[in-house]
């Protein structure tokens, strides 16, 4: 427990340092604000166009899709804020040998590398996503009971854990392959597909987004649990999968460290 509190403390400190860094470049804030707003408006407009023609899309109502876009933006913000920049720096550290410094510190190296860089302006996405989600929830109002809310919270956390573990595994591959920055770019474009429920995609793409690049677990499945459409077995399965991913990525990380020999011998 103390270790967890300490890690949270380190995350907060890392966030503050990221903020200090970011505040030097205020223009970035406005760029991010514009970029995020345009992204959000485009997504909402897309939904509006679709629902001009129909009032159900693969079983989803318009407000449910708004909730989905809210979660998509929120989770995307979390990934872009901490996970992805930290993983990019991890891969760079393997290539340049600066990972050595994380390994000579008396804290869990996985925690240190996972929070080593924070892109503070991406909180814009987190805030916009959360805002949209709240609006959608208030419109869905009567359909959401406490059970759904709890399930939603659990599955959302599980989904973020799955994505984090997945990206950690990808980044850990750098221990063996050294140069593979592009792998995160590929993930980024796969993530974009998550702005629609995976159910609308053809089976092969649906399977890809669920089992190969597990975007579905972080977006579609949490929203399904929110609107009470999630089977209890899927809920339990998602939680188990998250635990499995966390343990698995930890093992691969340990294996990678064993393999790591630094950039210069």
């Amino acid at each position: 427990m103390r270790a967890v509190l300490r890690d949270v403390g380190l995350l907060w400190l890392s966030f503050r340092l990221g903020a200090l860094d970011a505040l030097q470049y205020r223009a970035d804030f406005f760029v991010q604000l514009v970029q995020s707003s345009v992204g959000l408006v485009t997504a909402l407009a897309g939904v509006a166009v679709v629902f001009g023609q129909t009032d159900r899309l693969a079983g989803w109502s318009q407000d449910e899709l708004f909730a989905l876009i809210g979660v998509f933006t929120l989770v995307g913000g979390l990934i872009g804020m901490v996970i992805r920049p930290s993983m990019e720096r991890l891969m760079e550290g393997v290539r340049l040998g600066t990972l050595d410094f994380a390994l000579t510190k008396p804290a869990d190296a996985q925690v240190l590398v996972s929070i080593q860089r924070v892109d503070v302006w991406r909180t814009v996405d987190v805030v916009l996503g959360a805002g949209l989600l709240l609006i959608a929830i208030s419109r869905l109002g009567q359909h959401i009971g406490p059970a759904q809310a709890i399930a939603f919270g659990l599955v959302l956390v599980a989904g973020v854990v799955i994505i984090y573990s997945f990206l950690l595994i990808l980044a850990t591959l750098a221990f063996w392959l050294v140069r593979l920055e592009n792998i995160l770019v590929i993930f980024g474009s796969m993530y974009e597909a998550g702005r629609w429920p995976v159910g609308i995609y053809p089976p092969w793409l649906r399977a890809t987004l669920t089992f190969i690049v597990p975007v579905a677990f972080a977006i579609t499945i949490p929203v399904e649990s929110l609107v009470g459409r999630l089977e209890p077995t899927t809920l339990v399965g998602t939680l188990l999968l998250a635990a499995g991913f966390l343990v698995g990525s930890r093992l691969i990380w340990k294996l990678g460290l064993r393999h790591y020999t630094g950039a210069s011998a």
Partner: protein
Amino acid sequence: MTSHDEPVIAVRGLRKTYQVPEREGGLRAATGSLFRRRTREVIAVAGIDLTVASGEIVGFLGPNGAGKTTTLKVLSGLLHPTSGEVRVMGYVPWERPSAFLRRMTLIMGQRNQLSWDIPVIDSFELNRAIFQVPRDEYRTRLSELVELLDLGDLIRKPIRNLSLGERMKCEFAGSLLHRPEVLFLDEPTIGLDVTMQRRIRGFIERYNERTGATTLLTSHYMADVEALCRRVIVIHHGRLLYDGDLSGLVSRFSPYKTIVLDLEPAEDSIEGLVHELVGNERWIVSVGQERVTLRVPRSETTGVTTRLLTALSVIDLVVEEPAIDEVIDLVFATTAESGELAEASTDDPS
């Protein structure tokens, strides 16, 4: 705390080999290696033994690729050795127990750990949190380090605005905030100008005096080693060539001394006379009318000097040990050719 008679660093039979991908040049070979990788085993450290006592500053010498950095990385827990036994303050470094990491530090002259874009002091704050240094202790240590390193206002600036030397000083401060008892310094003065090198050197010395920290340092600059280390360890091709004090290194690997005589101008050529007195053509470096330079085996120095002093009208006489750089060059050149010294010295780890 480690007791005084127990070594802080104890290494026995340390070996480290790397598997290195091998391929011929050219596109065809490169494409081929996509599918079938051939590897070759490279021996970085070929079995070394050493112990370091508490509070010692030991210089680690060797040409590039000798195995210095590999050894340092094993000692600081970054590499698993292929075989051998290593204890640092009683810990097995590569298990990286938190208690061990809290008590040591690794500073690399070629790499920075402080964040590029944020003020130095904020990076220090992160290290404070990671090492869980209590705030009041942190403040005392920080002001002490700021004073010792003459940092002043530098710590309020981001790293990117600092010169290479200033950056290195900040690296030192950041890496010592948790007051480590063992310091591993890998080329700490590399690329710095002479003044800054001297400052860093002075700092290492004062830090060692003040805290009694055991220090292992590698450097390409002999001046660092001469100023700081009474004891040096020379490795080459992954083997220990020498372990002992610096002056011993000179007498061991350079069996010659240089004798320079300034003479009163003579009417006749003295060349024939000098040849006769010295008794060996090969010991003569140069003979002029007013100066004679000789390179004579250690054991013959006294005899030759006496003979010359009695026969010639000498104004001044200097007998010199060769410069330490020359000795080191000589050691590596000799061993590269024959490997004999390596064999000889492994039998006799003084």
